[in-house]
């Protein structure tokens, strides 16, 4: 709170006032929770029989875990696919060849603007009817849609990651005789990938959430199983809350990992900044007359 832009560090009077408001706020928060719980109870939704299904092993074994497995499968395939798609078209957008650049730009901008649900519905019919594919076409439709949308987002991450690198990185690559493409592959992309890692993990959360759209085309994912399980038992509300809780726990963990990674990266950058103290000291100690270029400030690889 001390670093808040709108509020000065509170004095004794303000602290008392904040404490009073704090208590009121806590009461409001408790009131909201109580209102929800009592409201549900008044509507006969807090019966133990409606909730204890979800602590039984068989519900998990037959419905929730298979659903979670399918959700994970689609999400992991979507993540792998969109990273590959993103690398290809991200590099394509950085290409100097106007044709490759143009095609990549059109593809990335197009798929970023089309709703994922529209693609899922299309691919589902396209795979099963037009291409007559067998197997779990619903899952492949979800995976394909996730790859096209999130791959385009990753392509933009790659592009902005490379753009945010200091110019010196490419210049150094070219100075030691690399071509543009080699400097991109060996010097710029690896650094951009590290810098974009937190944003990439954030995108995984989006992929996981969007996999639930497969519900619409009856893809057997977590939400679909939660719904099929609860419909005959009359506890859809409870099942949706449990499914949401599972998603929240996984996504919250992923977001926390992203924060930790980004903190690690920024501390790494700080270390790199201090690192040249050694070589710089050595240079200072170099024999006079030897023309040593002044040590440059190490570039900041963080996007």
């Amino acid at each position: 709170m001390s670093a808040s832009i709108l509020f000065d560090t509170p004095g004794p009077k303000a602290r008392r006032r904040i404490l009073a408001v704090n208590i009121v706020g806590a009461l409001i928060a408790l009131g909201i929770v109580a209102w929800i719980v009592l409201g549900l109870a008044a509507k006969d939704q807090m019966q133990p029989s409606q909730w204890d299904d979800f602590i039984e092993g068989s519900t998990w074994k037959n419905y929730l875990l298979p659903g979670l497995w399918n959700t994970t499968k689609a999400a992991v395939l979507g993540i792998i696919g969109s990273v590959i798609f993103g690398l290809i078209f991200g590099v394509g957008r950085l290409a100097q060849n106007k044709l490759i650049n143009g095609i990549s730009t059109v593809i990335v901008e197009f798929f970023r603007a089309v709703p994922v649900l529209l693609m899922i519905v299309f691919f589902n019919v396209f795979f099963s009817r037009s291409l007559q594919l067998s197997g779990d076409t619903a899952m492949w439709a979800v995976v394909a849609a996730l790859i096209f949308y999130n791959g385009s987002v990753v392509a933009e991450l790659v592009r902005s990651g490379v753009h945010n690198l200091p110019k010196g990185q490419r210049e150094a690559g070219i100075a030691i005789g690399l071509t543009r493409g080699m400097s991109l592959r060996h010097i710029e992309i690896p650094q951009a990938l590290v810098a974009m890692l937190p944003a990439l993990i954030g995108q995984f959360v989006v992929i996981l959430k969007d996999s639930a759209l497969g519900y619409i085309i009856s893809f057997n994912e977590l939400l679909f199983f939660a719904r099929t399980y609860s419909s005959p038992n009359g506890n859809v509300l409870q099942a949706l809350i449990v499914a949401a809780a599972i998603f929240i726990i996984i996504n919250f963990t992923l977001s926390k990992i992203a924060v930790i990674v980004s903190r690690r990266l920024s501390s790494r950058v700080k270390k790199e900044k201090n690192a040249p103290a050694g070589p710089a000291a050595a240079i200072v100690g170099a024999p006079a007359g030897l023309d040593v270029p002044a040590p440059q400030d190490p570039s900041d690889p963080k996007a």
Partner: protein
Amino acid sequence: MENYLSIFTEYDIPGAFWVNIQLTFWAAIGALVLGTILALLRISPVGSFQALGTSYVNLIRNTPLTIIILFCVLALYGQLGFVLSSDFQGNFFRLAVLGLAVYHAAFVCEAIRSGVNTVPLGQAEAARAIGLSFLPAARLVILPQAFRGAIVPLGNTLIALIKNSTVAAVGSVATESSSVMKTMIEFRADIVIPIFLTFAVGFVIIVIPVGLLTTWASKKLAVAR
């Protein structure tokens, strides 16, 4: 070609997009109001308010929109009998708007908060140094800069909302574009790809101007620092 053109007379495609725009419009208003309140809670110096705002954002942002809209229709309406309109179809529409607004409010809150975070601390210190008290400082110095910083994230949220309005299909809003497209490609298996491209280009036409407008506005109103 004639085969393809017949879909425009058989189905009301502009009407389907109009439903999406209406969903977006009402949900955007709801999300803006709720999101601003949440942002105020999160930037207040009161611990319990902050906790309230933070838990809302963390819970809603990590839940799939599909579950939220399904919850509105199946749980709120189906199981609890919560009704927003006496008209059967209108009720589903309003429930979908409610779900969209609740979901995007979390993102609006974060957009506004990130706008406030772009204002350097020195601005507030300077405002106090020239004798402005809390309200004038906020109104004259901090918030004008904060709103400008929030243009880009707010624009991105609006674009996401336009695209996410198709998820209203889960909430039994059968007149919006993804439901209409689903019906169309199931009946016209011969022209699946042209139908998809028609709808996809429709969204590109709606979304890209919003993106360009956001970029233009953010550059035009950028705070020189």
